[in-house]
C-alpha cells in the first residue's frame, strides 16, 4: 500500500445559499481499501461525493490525488483522474444487451463506421471475469432480463472497465435482496483487492462492517469520526452518526 492516500480532501467546504452543506471536512481513502461513508440524511455524503465527481466544485479546501494537488472542475476532470461514480439509479439502458451497456458512449469502431462487436464482447467478458461475475447466462441478453444484483454488477463493471482507480458506489445494495446483496458486497471487496480505491456509501451498517476497512462518519456537514472497521462496533458508529461531537456550531464562521 502506498504511503500517501489515493484521494485526500483537506478542509473542503460547500455552501448552498444559507445552508452549510459541508464545513472543513478532511477525508481520505487509500488504494486497495474500502472506505465507507456514513451519516444520516442531510449529513453531506452526497455533497461530498458530488464534489469529488466534479458535479460542482467545493467552495474551499484542497484535493490531492495520488499525492498531487489537483483541481476538479467537471465530471470530465474526475474521469481523467480515474474517478468513476456508480449512481444509485444505475444508468443502464434496459433494452440494450450487457456488452452495449458496458461500452455505451465509448464504443470500439472498425472501418466504415462499424461497431467492433467482437472485440467489445471479448473485453466485456474479460472484465466480468476479472470481477468473478459468473452468474450471467450470456453477455448478449438485454439488461432488462437480469436480476437486480446482476444489473448492479454490470454498472460496477462498467465503471471498472474505464481504467478507473477510484470507484464511488452510492447505495449499491439499497434495492437488493439478500443473495444479491451478497454478490454485490463480494464484488466491492474484489474491487479493493484488485488495488482500486473504493468509497462505499450505505445506510446499512451490517453491509459496511462486512466489507469496509475504514469508516468515515459525517454529521451535519462535518466529519465527526473515523473508525477502523475491525476495531469498532456498530453501536459506536451509530452513536457517532446520531450524536457525534461537532467541532463547531453549524452555520457559524469557523475561526482558525
Amino acid at each position: 500500500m502506498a504511503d500517501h492516500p489515493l484521494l485526500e480532501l483537506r478542509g473542503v467546504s460547500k455552501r448552498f445559499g444559507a445552508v452549510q452543506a459541508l464545513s472543513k471536512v478532511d477525508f481520505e481513502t487509500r488504494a486497495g481499501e474500502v472506505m465507507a461513508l456514513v451519516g444520516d440524511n442531510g449529513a453531506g455524503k452526497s455533497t461530498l461525493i458530488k464534489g469529488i465527481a466534479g458535479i460542482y466544485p467545493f467552495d474551499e479546501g484542497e484535493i490531492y490525488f495520488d499525492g498531487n494537488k489537483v483541481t476538479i472542475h467537471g465530471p470530465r476532470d474526475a474521469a481523467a483522474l480515474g474517478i468513476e461514480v456508480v449512481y444509485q439509479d444505475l444508468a443502464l439502458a434496459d433494452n440494450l444487451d450487457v456488452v452495449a451497456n458496458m461500452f455505451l458512449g465509448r464504443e470500439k469502431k472498425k472501418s466504415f463506421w462499424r461497431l467492433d462487436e467482437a472485440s467489445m464482447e471479448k473485453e466485456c467478458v474479460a472484465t466480468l471475469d476479472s470481477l468473478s461475475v459468473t452468474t450471467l447466462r450470456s453477455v448478449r441478453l438485454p439488461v432488462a432480463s437480469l436480476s437486480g444484483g446482476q444489473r448492479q454488477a454490470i454498472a460496477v463493471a462498467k465503471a471498472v472497465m474505464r481504467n478507473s482507480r477510484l470507484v464511488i458506489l452510492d447505495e449499491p445494495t439499497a434495492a437488493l435482496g439478500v443473495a444479491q446483496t451478497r454478490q454485490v458486497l463480494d464484488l466491492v471487496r474484489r474491487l479493493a483487492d484488485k488495488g482500486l480505491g473504493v468509497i462505499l456509501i450505505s445506510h446499512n451498517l451490517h453491509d459496511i462492517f462486512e466489507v469496509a476497512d475504514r469508516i468515515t462518519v459525517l454529521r451535519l456537514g462535518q466529519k465527526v469520526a473515523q473508525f477502523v472497521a475491525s476495531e469498532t462496533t456498530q453501536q459506536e458508529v451509530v452513536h457517532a452518526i446520531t450524536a457525534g461531537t461537532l467541532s463547531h456550531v453549524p452555520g457559524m464562521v469557523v475561526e482558525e
Partner: protein
Amino acid sequence: MSVKESTQKSALLASQARITPAEYIQNYIKRVSSGDLGSIPIILGLLLIAVIFQWQNENFLTARNFVNLIVQMAGITTIAYGVVFVLLLGEIDLSIGYVSAVAAVTMTLLLREPSGWPWYAAMGLALLAVAGIGLFQGLIVTRFQVPSFVVTLAGLLAWNGVVLIMIGGAGTVIIQDKVIIGIANYFLPAVWGWIIAVAAVGGFAVVQVRHVLNRQRHNLPVTPMVIVIAQIVGLAVLSGIVVYVANQDRGVPFVGVILLVFLAGLSFLATRTPFGRYVYAVGGNKEAARRAGIPVERIRVIVFMISSVMAGFGGIILASRLRSVDTAAGGGNLLLNSIAAAVIGGTSLFGGSGRVSSAVLGALVIASVENGMGLLGLSSGVKFVVTGLVLLIAVLVDALSRQSRSQSGLA
C-alpha cells in the same frame, strides 16, 4: 497471446460454450414459447390474409397482383422506414404525410417549365428542402423541450398549407420526366431480376459468414454454421420465388430494388454503427445515454431529419406512381398508414425496441389488405375498418407477448 489466455480461462465463456444446431433450435423454441415471438405473428397474419383473399377472389395470388402489391406498398414502406427511427426514440412525427408531399411538389415544380431542372437536381433540392424541415422541427423539439407530438402536429397543418400554396390554382401538375416516372413504373428485364437476386443473396451470405468467422477467430460463441447456411438457403429460395413470380408478369419493379437498398442501408445504420446504438440507447434510457456522454439532442435532431428525408423519398415514389401531384398529395390516410406499418411490423411506440425490417412487413400487411379488398370491390369504409382492426390486433399481440415475456423474466 495474453488475450487468448484470458479468454480460455474465462468462466463466463466456458458457461456459454459452443452451441450445437439442436441447442440453437431448442433455445429458439424456448424464446418463442416464453413470448418473444419476433416476426412469427405477422408472417402468420400475412398467410392468413393471403388465404382469405385468394379464397374470396382468385386474382389475389397472381403474378400480376403480386407485382402491383410491391408497387403499392413502396411509398408507405419508404416513409415507414423513417418512422421506425422516430419510434425507436420514443417520439412521434405526425408531419411526414405532408412533408412527403412538400418533397414531391417541390420536385415536380422544378422539373416543369419555366425552371425545367434535370431530374437529379430537382430531386436533390426537394430532399434537401425536407431535410431542412426535419432539422427545423428537430431543433424546436430539442431546444425548447416541446413534445414532438405538438411540434409535428403543427407541421402537419403548416406543411399541408405549403403544399396547397405551392400547387396554387393548377390543381394537378403532371410529371413528364422519364426517369422520375420510371421510379415506380419501370420493371426490370427478367435477367436483371435474377442478377439482383443473386447479388442480394450473395451479399447477405458474405456478411453472415464473415460475421461467424470473425467471432470464431475471437473465440466467442457463434451461431452454428448449419443454421447460418439454412438461413442463406431460405433467403435464396424466397428471393428465387419472388423473382420467378414477378418475371411471369412485367418483371421485378425497379422500386422493389429501391426498397431493398433502403432496407440494407438503414438496417446497417441502426444495428452496426455507433449512431444506431445511440438511437436505441436514447430510446431505452435517455438519462443513461446522457451520462454515458452521448450527444442526446444531436441524435434526436438527426433522427427527425432521417424521418423527413425518408418521407421525402416516399413522396417522390408516390408521385412517380401517379405520374403527377395534386392538392390531395400527402393527405388521406398516408400518415396513419405509415405509422401503422411500423407498429404492425413490431416497432414499439414506447421507444427502444424495433427493427427497420418491421416497416416492410407492416407495409406488406396494410398494402395486402387494401389490395385484397380493392379486388373484392369493397367500399373504402370497410377498408378503413379492417385496417383499423389489423392494427389493433397487432398491438394486442405485442402487448400479450410482452406480458408473457415479463412473466418469464425476459421483458
